[in-house]
């Protein structure tokens, strides 16, 4: 019985510590959220998105490869990978032209990390997928069409 009580005291102490840590990280989380580029995620087209990201225009470049299926059966899960061979790649963005908002994901690539990221995105319908790469403060783009047989938005 006595031991139980001791354990309880110990546990509650640990819990108090944990929740204090939770509070701190929630505050940090809010600070981090402000770094989220709202205007870029609300832009509706490739050009608008590039402008919201701080560029003027984007030039096609053969150094960017998009790895995505030609036909995606399920638009809710479309695997997309982007590889950039452009030196000094700083950011990689994945855009879907016909989604309600074009920008799906953006990645910041520090030095030492390969400019090669893959993730899964949602696509509402058959559309062009753009990979925008920011290197030396210039924007480059590559495009690939992905056909979607079953949309991933709504449902």
């Amino acid at each position: 019985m006595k031991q139980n009580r001791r354990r309880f005291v110990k546990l509650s102490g640990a819990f108090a510590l944990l929740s204090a840590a939770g509070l701190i990280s929630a505050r940090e989380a809010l600070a981090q959220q402000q770094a989220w580029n709202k205007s870029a995620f609300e832009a509706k087209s490739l050009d608008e998105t590039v402008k919201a990201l701080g560029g003027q225009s984007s030039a096609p470049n053969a150094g960017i490869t998009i790895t995505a299926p030609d036909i995606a059966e399920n638009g809710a899960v479309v695997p997309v990978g982007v590889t950039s061979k452009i030196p000094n790649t700083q950011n990689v963005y994945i855009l879907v032209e016909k989604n309600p908002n074009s920008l799906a994901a953006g990645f910041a690539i520090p030095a030492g990390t390969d400019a090669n990221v893959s993730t899964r995105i949602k696509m509402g319908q058959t559309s062009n997928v753009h990979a925008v790469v920011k290197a030396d403060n210039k924007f480059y783009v590559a495009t690939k069409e992905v056909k979607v047989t079953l949309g991933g938005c709504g449902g």
Partner: protein
Amino acid sequence: MADPMRIRATEQPDGVDVRVLMSHEMETGQRRDSAGAIVPAHYISNVTVTHNGKPVLSAEWGPAVAKNPYLQFKFKGGKKGEKLTVTWVDNKGDTRTDEATIS
């Protein structure tokens, strides 16, 4: 609190290959429920991966990333046995951090 992430980091000749599978609803804010009301958006907005306290990848995501997001990338300079930390924050301020050892 959300479910833990599944992280796999393996050392390869050309760098450390990192694969992360997160558990998250990723609600777009476009869907309607059976009553016709819009289901509010709930998605991961920021992801940070650090290795020895140094960021190796940070991502900003919109609601168009698929449910239970998957992420794969490679970085140089990691060694077997070292720790890798992955943190995500969603648009409701919820957050989760998980750690993995490079193998």
